[in-house]
């Protein structure tokens, strides 16, 4: 025996990985074992500090980690094997990159001497995931492993958060080397995200805000990612300025939906008042949002007469789609803190009463209205009732992608940040169910509901088995219209009502399916049954699949037809066949 065997920092690569997780405060890990990660699983078996959640498909692990991260603000951690384990992670990694979610993914790799040999379950993991991670590493020497793991956590959680991946060949997991706890020198000298905003730019911004006649605040997911302090400061800023505020899909909850200055969500399926305010404003304050095409609509007609202030931690978000007048690079909370201080010291609340009167007129158009029906459950009504039943409860909502997602965003009111988990940038069907798992792991006693569609939910349905295994009482509230609703809506609007492959034939019986999984199945068919069934769902302390049969052909309005401007919205009352046909004429090329 050598002296080194008594050094507590001498350990195998596999042990280093578990040790690093503990040193970074990781309590939960989502993963799936396989040949190239067996040494790590062996270490996991022999400790109790990190709880491993076994999913049914690696994609589920990735989305669960995303839900975990978004509801806690901590990084989500995933462990999967080489080859298919890694390729199955491509979707969640890309999803996390688009929505700026901190993920640390550890993948096993074939032993270093087999790399490049087309070995069993080999793939070029770092090559494949290079464009869908913020950064990734292949560790060839066990003595580099500690440094890389610490850097991985640092990169994932600082600056604009995002997914990172560490690929560890099996021989490196077996090899013994020296571990060291996290320290500053672990990180590339070249990685220096900017946190504090430029003081002169902040002054310029305040001057613009103070002189505004028709201002609007447009906030996004960056405010949520920045942490609870950013949401608090955002609310203070709204209070101090008296400005109207709208938010992107990703930013819901940063400002409360019951707040008096709330305009609702903006963008393609945003409210009329939010989009009109964006179009007609004279000063726009964009905080932690990125002028995505679903927000801007037609770019050359986007808010034509406004001065734009843009706060973002990522310099590449500035002037990417829309030219702004006052860019401020920095962390939302940090910049908002400074901006508020300057505003309070040097500016007065401008008088914008005429602007509010104008907004009131737009509000009166009641753009989220829908025709009530006493025979069929309308999806909007279902979400409204779900919202009512969960009011005052400790609730987290996830969604899949499609019409149900937009209705959830429109009709479910969020009072707090970190309560709303949805796949915004990538639009990943199948996100919501595993994301709900991740949320529930982090918040065992909270009510976690996945508002789902019948098509999306089938993409990751196998994770119900995970929910049953770990007694995670997630509620899967399926708005079942037997269609891929959003696909069908676009086919109706843009493709001559030729419903090519958007009808879900041979849907499973979700109630029986729940039974087969060992969880609870519920169904509501008539509006009169809905409240009782929702109440029952909430009271059950086990996973529930709720089959909510809704009107099959209902469509999601209001809508900015793709490629149109904010002031060319199609409102539900006006969405007659003719109006829709002309609004969408010639729009087939649009995405």
């Amino acid at each position, binding site marked *: 025996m050598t002296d080194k065997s008594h050094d507590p920092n001498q350990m195998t690569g596999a042990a280093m990985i578990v040790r690093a997780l503990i040193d970074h405060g990781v309590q939960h890990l989502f993963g799936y074992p396989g040949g190239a990660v067996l040494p790590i699983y062996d270490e996991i078996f022999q400790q109790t500090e990190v709880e491993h959640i076994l999913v049914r498909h690696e994609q589920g692990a990735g989305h669960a980690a995303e839900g975990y991260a978004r509801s806690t603000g901590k990084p989500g951690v995933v462990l999967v094997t080489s080859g298919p384990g890694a390729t199955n992670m491509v979707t969640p990694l890309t999803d996390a990159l688009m929505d700026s979610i901190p993920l640390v993914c550890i993948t096993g790799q074939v032993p270093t001497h087999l790399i490049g040999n087309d070995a069993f379950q080999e793939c070029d993991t770092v090559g494949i995931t*290079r*464009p869908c991670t913020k*950064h990734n590493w292949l560790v060839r020497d066990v003595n580099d492993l500690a440094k890389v793991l610490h850097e991985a956590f640092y990169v994932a959680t600082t600056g*604009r958060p995002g997914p990172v991946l560490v690929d560890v060949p099996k021989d490196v997991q077996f090899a013994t080397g020296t571990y060291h706890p996290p320290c500053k020198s672990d990180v590339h000298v*070249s990685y220096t995200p900017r946190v504090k905003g430029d003081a002169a730019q902040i002054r310029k911004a305040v001057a613009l805000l103070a002189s505004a006649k028709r201002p609007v605040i447009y906030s996004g997911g960056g405010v949520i990612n920045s942490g609870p302090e950013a949401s608090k400061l955002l609310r203070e800023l709204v209070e101090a300025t008296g400005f109207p505020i709208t938010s992107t899909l990703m930013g819901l909850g940063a400002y409360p939906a019951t707040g008096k200055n709330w305009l609702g969500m903006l963008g393609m399926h945003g409210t009329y008042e939010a989009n009109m305010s964006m179009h007609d404003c004279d000063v726009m304050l964009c905080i932690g949002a990125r002028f995505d*095409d679903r927000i801007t609509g*037609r770019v*050359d007609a986007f808010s034509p007469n406004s001065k734009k202030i843009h706060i973002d931690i990522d310099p590449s978000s500035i002037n990417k789609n829309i030219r702004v007048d006052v860019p401020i690079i920095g962390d939302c909370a940090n910049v908002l803190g400074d901006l508020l201080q300057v505003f309070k010291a040097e500016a007065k609340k401008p008088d914008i009463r005429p602007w509010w009167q104008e907004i009131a007129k737009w509000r009166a158009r009641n753009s989220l209205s829908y025709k009530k029906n006493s025979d069929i459950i309308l999806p909007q009504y279902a979400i409204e009732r779900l919202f009512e039943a969960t009011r005052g409860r400790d609730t987290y909502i996830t969604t899949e992608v499609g019409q149900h997602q937009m209705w959830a965003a429109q009709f479910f009111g969020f009072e707090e940040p970190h309560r709303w988990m949805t796949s915004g940038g990538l639009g990943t069907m199948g996100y919501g169910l595993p994301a709900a798992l991740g949320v529930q792991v982090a918040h065992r006693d909270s009510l976690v509901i996945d508002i789902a569609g019948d098509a999306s939910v089938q993409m990751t349905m196998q994770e119900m088995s995970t929910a049953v295994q770990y007694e995670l009482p997630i509620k899967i509230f399926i708005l079942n219209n037997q269609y891929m609703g959003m696909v069908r809506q676009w086919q109706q609007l843009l493709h001559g009502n030729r419903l090519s492959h958007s009808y879900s034939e041979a849907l499973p019986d979700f109630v029986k399916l729940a039974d087969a999984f060992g969880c609870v199945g519920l169904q509501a068919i008539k509006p009169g049954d809905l409240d009782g069934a929702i109440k029952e769902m909430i009271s059950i302390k086990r996973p529930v699949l709720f089959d909510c049969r809704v009107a099959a052909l209902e469509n999601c309005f209001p809508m900015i037809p793709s*490629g149109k401007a904010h002031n060319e919205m199609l409102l539900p009352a006006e969405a007659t066949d003719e109006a829709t046909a002309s609004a969408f004429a010639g729009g087939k090329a649009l*995405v």
Partner: protein
Amino acid sequence: MNQPASAYFLEERHDPTESHTLSVLVQNEPGVLARVIGLFSGRGYNIESLTVSETESQKHLSRITIVTTGTPMVIEQIKHQLDRMVPVYRVVDMTLTGRSIERELAMVKVRGGGDNRVEALRLADAFRARVIDATTESFVFEITGNSAKINQFIDLMRPLGLVEVSRTGVAAIGRGPEGM
């Protein structure tokens, strides 16, 4: 058919494009060049010329020189996208600083005899190209200069029996005493 502007508006834009030379200082580690190139191909940016080599071996620093074209907005995007990569230290737009020297090296093989051979040698002399290989029926010239000069030399060699060209791509450095 008259189609409205798409939400994916890029094809609707016809802003004039500019050519810019970017110097990028990176950590020389496996995959770093793939990251940079992947950024360009993934986001649809152009690469006109790319030169890369380790420049400070002790610090493991490499310098990448990229000549790219795009609208001013796209050029700005490229710089920010490069700058936010973890192993990238600095990105300097040499075209924007206006105080840079650009050089390229080319090796030009010409085959022929008689007057053509004499003419090739004479032109090489005028361009300060050196003969680095010779046979009774061929020369290889080494020429350095900016890209325009090299293009011009190659054009002149074409009728004289140009066989092939190997070019290094553009390397650039700022004038004056300061480093990048």
